[in-house]
């Protein structure tokens, strides 16, 4: 590269990313060579569809347009989208409002995830993987007075339906598209969707240049190899570029401080509630506040994945309304964001309720408030705060509260407050999870117990008591100065869905690692020598077994060394070569019996 100006390292970084994956490169990029692209293939890597939801005087809310026209939504899904795309109740959202919702995909049909997303599925951090059972809806809602309309108001939502949890990205995208769409209608949507259909697929770890509506958005899709808590994309310092390119510092992170500002005295308790998967409801004056707060809660335990259901905006029309609000069972382990005052009554029996007042008052410095008693929660006009009988396991960290308070007094920018809070949560979660990681790693059998001619050894079982014993010496006290009942917190966590989800993934990863090590051990063997003393039947059996292994490795993308698979293929061919010719013909055929049965 020629002549980078030495005093502008940040810009240099930016430039580097400018052209790293332009839509042109991506055509030849990884994952794109296998199949020809059909129209909307690229689009569907990012979005399932775009909907316009309007208000019809006779029908109520209705999906007016679905784009691309070929995209499929069941009637049930359409109804969900209709209700979730408008603020419910009489909240006076005048002007433009943005929020997000999440809904269950209708049962019985599986939409195959775009094959170009293989890389995303493998290399995305666990909390950012696309969600096969749910859709996200990202909404841009406009409500303005319009005397020419019978209803007196223009009310319309532009909604993007996607599996990707990139809230910040889609909100920025809608901010570019929606205002133009409301003014210029359908050609604008057509053009925007065609822009998106030329984008490269989201690729973890890469900075993408995404042209849309006359600007180029630059985003970096996080990768599971990123160090948590580091900023991955250089910010543009040039203002005159703003019309030409927009750099997004993050695709998915919400402003935690803004979310938690009304209740920031309780952040640590909220962290515990989320970690333990306790039923939690956020009552907010508008969907933008409810959705932002729910997403903030879910992300406060990152890099742990929140494993239960969460609904950034939940309405009484939701298909899970009955399931989640029934009084015949204990409240489920979910986080709901609601705005309809009706919920204050329906969810009265819930153990933890966060009530958020109007964000307009957020400029005020919240005074020290106690956790409120649940019986004080009135149906209407309750004061903002956290209503719960929960006693936190850990002692309160006064320092972070003081730090944030000081920031408020000094009018520290929200971005800086957010960074402090995010760092705090990250350190807390890591202190909590490291002892578990360490213990689980010790469940791995020794390398020497792997024999190429036996099945791979099993992982040792997880024993709660043994794990608890490790805490005495290598517990969270090594990395956190917080005191309190850590043991109690772990005991509850081990029963929670978050632990279950986390441990399943770990166990799968470790089992695959064992399979991979076993495969490598097998490749190191001299197979020709081995088959010399074996019968033909046994050799055929070996070939079939090896083929099976190879297929498994390819299917599950086992973490093997780069050349292992090609070595295995060579081995298979060599062994087949030692067999009589008629057998060779059968075994070398691509659709040999083994492959047909598996």
């Amino acid at each position, binding site marked *: 590269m020629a002549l980078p100006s030495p005093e502008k390292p940040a810009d240099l970084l930016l430039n*580097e990313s400018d052209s790293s994956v332009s839509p042109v490169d991506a055509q030849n990029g990884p994952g794109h060579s296998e199949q020809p692209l059909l129209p909307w293939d690229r689009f569907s890597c990012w979005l399932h569809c775009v909907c316009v939801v309007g208000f019809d005087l006779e029908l109520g809310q209705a999906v007016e347009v679905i784009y691309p026209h070929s995209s499929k939504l069941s009637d049930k899904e359409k109804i969900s989208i209709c209700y979730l795309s408008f603020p419910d109740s009489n909240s006076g959202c005048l002007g433009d409002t943005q929020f997000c919702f999440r809904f269950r995909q209708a049962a019985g049909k599986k939409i195959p995830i775009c094959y170009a997303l293989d890389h995303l599925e493998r290399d995305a951090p666990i909390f950012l993987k696309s969600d096969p059972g749910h859709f996200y809806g990202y909404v841009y809602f406009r409500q303005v007075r319009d005397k020419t309309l019978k209803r007196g108001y223009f009310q319309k939502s532009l909604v993007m339906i996607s599996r990707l949890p990139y809230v910040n990205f889609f909100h920025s995208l809608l901010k570019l598209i929606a205002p133009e769409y409301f003014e210029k209608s359908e050609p604008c949507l057509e053009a925007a969707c065609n822009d998106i259909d*030329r984008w490269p697929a989201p690729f973890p770890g890469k900075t993408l240049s995404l042209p849309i509506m006359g600007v180029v958005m630059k985003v970096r899709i996080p990768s599971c190899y990123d160090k948590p808590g580091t900023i991955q994309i250089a910010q543009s310092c040039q203002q005159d570029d703003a*019309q030409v390119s927009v750099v997004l510092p993050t695709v998915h992170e919400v402003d935690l401080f803004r979310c938690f500002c009304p209740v920031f005295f309780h952040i640590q308790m909220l962290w515990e509630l989320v970690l333990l998967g306790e039923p939690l409801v956020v009552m907010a004056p508008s969907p933008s506040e409810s959705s932002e707060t729910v997403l903030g809660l879910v992300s406060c335990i990152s890099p742990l994945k929140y494993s239960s259901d969460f609904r950034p905006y939940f309405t009484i029309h939701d298909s899970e309304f009955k399931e989640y609000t029934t009084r015949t069972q204990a409240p489920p382990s979910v986080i709901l964001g609601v705005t309809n005052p009706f919920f204050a009554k329906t969810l009265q029996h819930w153990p933890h309720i966060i009530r958020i007042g109007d964000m307009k008052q957020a400029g005020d410095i919240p005074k020290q408030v106690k956790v409120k008693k649940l019986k004080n929660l009135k149906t209407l006009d309750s004061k903002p705060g956290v209503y719960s009988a929960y006693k936190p396991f850990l002692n309160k960290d006064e320092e972070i509260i003081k730090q944030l308070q000081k920031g408020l007094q000094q009018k520290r920018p929200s971005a800086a407050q957010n960074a402090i809070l995010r760092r705090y949560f990250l350190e807390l979660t890591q202190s909590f999870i490291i002892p578990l990681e360490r213990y689980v790693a010790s469940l791995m059998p020794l390398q020497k117990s792997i024999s190429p001619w036996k099945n791979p050894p099993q992982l040792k079982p997880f024993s709660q008591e043994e794990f608890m014993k490790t805490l005495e010496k290598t517990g969270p006290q090594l990395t956190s100065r917080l005191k309190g009942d850590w043991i109690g917190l772990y005991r509850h966590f081990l029963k929670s869905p978050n632990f279950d989800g986390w441990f399943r993934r770990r166990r799968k990863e470790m089992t695959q690692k064992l399979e991979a090590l076993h495969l490598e051990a097998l490749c190191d063997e001299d197979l020709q020598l081995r088959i010399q003393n074996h019968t033909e039947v046994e050799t055929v059996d070996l070939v079939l077994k090896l083929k099976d292994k190879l297929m498994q490795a390819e299917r599950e993308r086992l973490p093997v060394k780069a050349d292992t698979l090609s070595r295995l293929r060579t081995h298979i061919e060599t062994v087949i070569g030692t067999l009589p010719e008629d057998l060779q013909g059968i075994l070398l055929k691509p659709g040999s019996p083994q492959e047909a049965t598996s």
Partner: protein
Amino acid sequence: MSFLPPVRRDRIIPNLPQCYIKEAALQCKDTFHSKVKRACQDQRTGTVGFKISKIIVVGDLAVGKTCLINRFCKDTFDKNYKATIGVDFEMERFEVLGVPFSLQLWDTAGQERFKCIASTYYRGAQAIIIVFDVNDIASLDHTKQWLLDALKENDPNNVLLFLVGTKKDLSSAAQYMRVEQDAIKMAKEMKAEYWVVSSLTGENVNEFFFRVASLTFETCVLSELEKSESRRIGDVVRINSNSHNLYETKKNKANCCK
């Protein structure tokens, strides 16, 4: 830096490419502006090297805007016509005088129904390429309207204009001569630089885009230098007393009032 592929060899511009015809050119100099050359040698190009310039391509339906871009960016030519929906986009990287420089090429739709959204795509362009078909005199007439529309979203003093005739291969020499007179006249009126190309044969396509890249690059560096110079003057003034500078501005104002 390692993962950024080097600029393609055939995208390196060491000298100023010449105009197509001196009669209708933005400038007729043989070499880059001396200030620009010096700045590039001394690595004083500021942020230009990390910059992208936005170029928009406008013109009537089916005059060959997409073909022109495809010939240059992908070196392909597709005889079948496929209407552009909304906008196409290509990014092209160059190295001018040793400095990396990128062009964003926004290829807009010529169809009437997309005109309403065009303004969205026009914003912030550094150069406008107005395309007409040399075999279709009406498309030349319409270039005026395309220019007006595109300039609504851009500052006319800060944007370079190119008027490009396409499909030269379809026109006989005699036919072309007649159109050229009109086209050159139009280019002069618009203060645009005139070019004629064939995307089918590739005639003049590379030359044209190199010229676009070079002139936008030069403009970028000059404005960058101007900015840093004015900043330097401001600093000096702040250190010494600023009486001289005050006098200057007063004088300028007085001139304005006359």
